């Protein structure tokens, strides 16, 4: 696999990742008690794919997936939240740099790091980026926006913590570890 930022693999991963994001957002959203806000299981997929393919892929997976979902859903494209989704991918990607999930390594330490990063990234996106953009565009009451951001953010954190962590562990288990095969001694019978 080439190391360039836009290898063919990254491009494909963005496309398939966005498709997965879309399907999760559309069919697996669990509604929260606050109107127009759901627990986003799709962010667990975005976080997991970001660990594998890096911040640029993470940003585009979340951004494209969210944009297509908004277009298909019919409530108009909610750009403030679409952008916030993209920011989540970037932050997540920067925070988990250097993890070797693609080589099958994901220990308890990595799991803790993954979760700390995702909590911080979600807090920044739904507690800061999305509300500020919402206020700029729609000038809705500050308390209302922050409540929606808080509930959405908490739901996303919970979903990413549970589903995202399970995904990482399961994927690492399914992937053969680097150097797990040793050459047999040829002199032996």
């Amino acid at each position, binding site marked *: 696999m080439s190391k360039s930022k836009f290898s063919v693999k990254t491009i494909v991963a*963005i496309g398939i990742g*966005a498709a997965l994001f*879309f*399907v999760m957002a559309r069919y697996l959203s*669990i509604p929260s008690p606050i109107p127009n806000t759901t627990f986003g299981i799709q962010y*667990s997929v975005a976080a997991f794919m970001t660990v594998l393919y890096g911040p640029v892929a993470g940003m585009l997976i979340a951004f*494209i997936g969210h944009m297509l979902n908004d*277009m298909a859903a*019919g409530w108009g494209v909610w750009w403030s939240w679409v952008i916030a989704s993209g920011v989540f991918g970037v932050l997540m990607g920067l925070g988990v740099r250097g993890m070797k999930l693609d080589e099958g390594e994901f220990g308890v330490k990595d799991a803790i790091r993954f979760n700390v990063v995702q909590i911080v990234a979600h807090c920044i996106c739904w507690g800061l980026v999305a509300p500020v953009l919402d206020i700029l565009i729609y000038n809705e009451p500050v308390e209302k926006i922050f409540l929606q951001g808080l509930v959405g953010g908490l739901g996303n954190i919970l979903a990413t913590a549970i589903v995202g962590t399970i995904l990482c562990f399961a994927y690492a288990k399914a992937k053969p570890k680097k150097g797990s095969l040793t050459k047999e001694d040829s002199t032996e019978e």
Partner: protein
Amino acid sequence: MVNLFNYIDRQSPVHKLTGAAKFALLILWMLAAMTTFCTPYLCALTVLAVLLFRLSKIRFRDVAVMIWLTLVFLALNNILIYLFSPEHGVEIYGSRTLLFAGIGRYTVTAQQLLYHLNVVLKYTATIPIVLLFVATTNPSEFAASLNRLGVSYKISYSVALALRYIPDTVREFHDISQSQQARGIEMSRKENMVKRLTNAAAIILPLILSGMDRIDVVTNAMELRGFGKNKTRTWYMGRKFSTGDILCILLGILLVAVSLSYTLWNGGRYWNPFG
């Protein structure tokens, strides 16, 4: 195939426009509507959006489900705004015209009503355009149009791949979901939140793993065909701009220009009849 994006193939002037021109208009239109709180202008945008809708030969019942969903969304949003801040408009417009005393803090003021009208108009000015874009643009052409508007062809290709694999992923999702439910994994309201999320992982995991396999297969296929070797590429669904397309983009630029110049001239984003 499931028609997720609700593309409706008809003969109309709007369908004839290229996806690139329509997408440019969509972005510029939303920018114009998002940056202003000028009520008459938002009204004009709404009327224009409805006129374009008539021109496209998309009938109301084609998009009725989406419109109802949007109305519910809009109503809930307005109720929530009022519950949180019943005198939000008073703050914005800097004056207070009481219409009903109401109960406690829940008064009804002319300013609040105007603010709600603005929120409603922001929806009605943009949503018909989004629906129109989705209904009149072939999803395959969408990716080609992104490239035409200056998005790198590699990213456009990612969008094309996403659109290509969404139906497959949906089908696979339903298969996995049903077989897991047959094994007794509960996904409905009957389970509590955390259990539901854990159970969701049981559906997502096979879906993701098969997605990972698919990434490998598609990557190999594309690498074998030398994808990404050249700086540009052509698109099967790409089309040349016609006069209509150029007019469409000019209209978009005009709308944004009007919105911005109003804000500059007025010294603020709000049209304030109370001042």
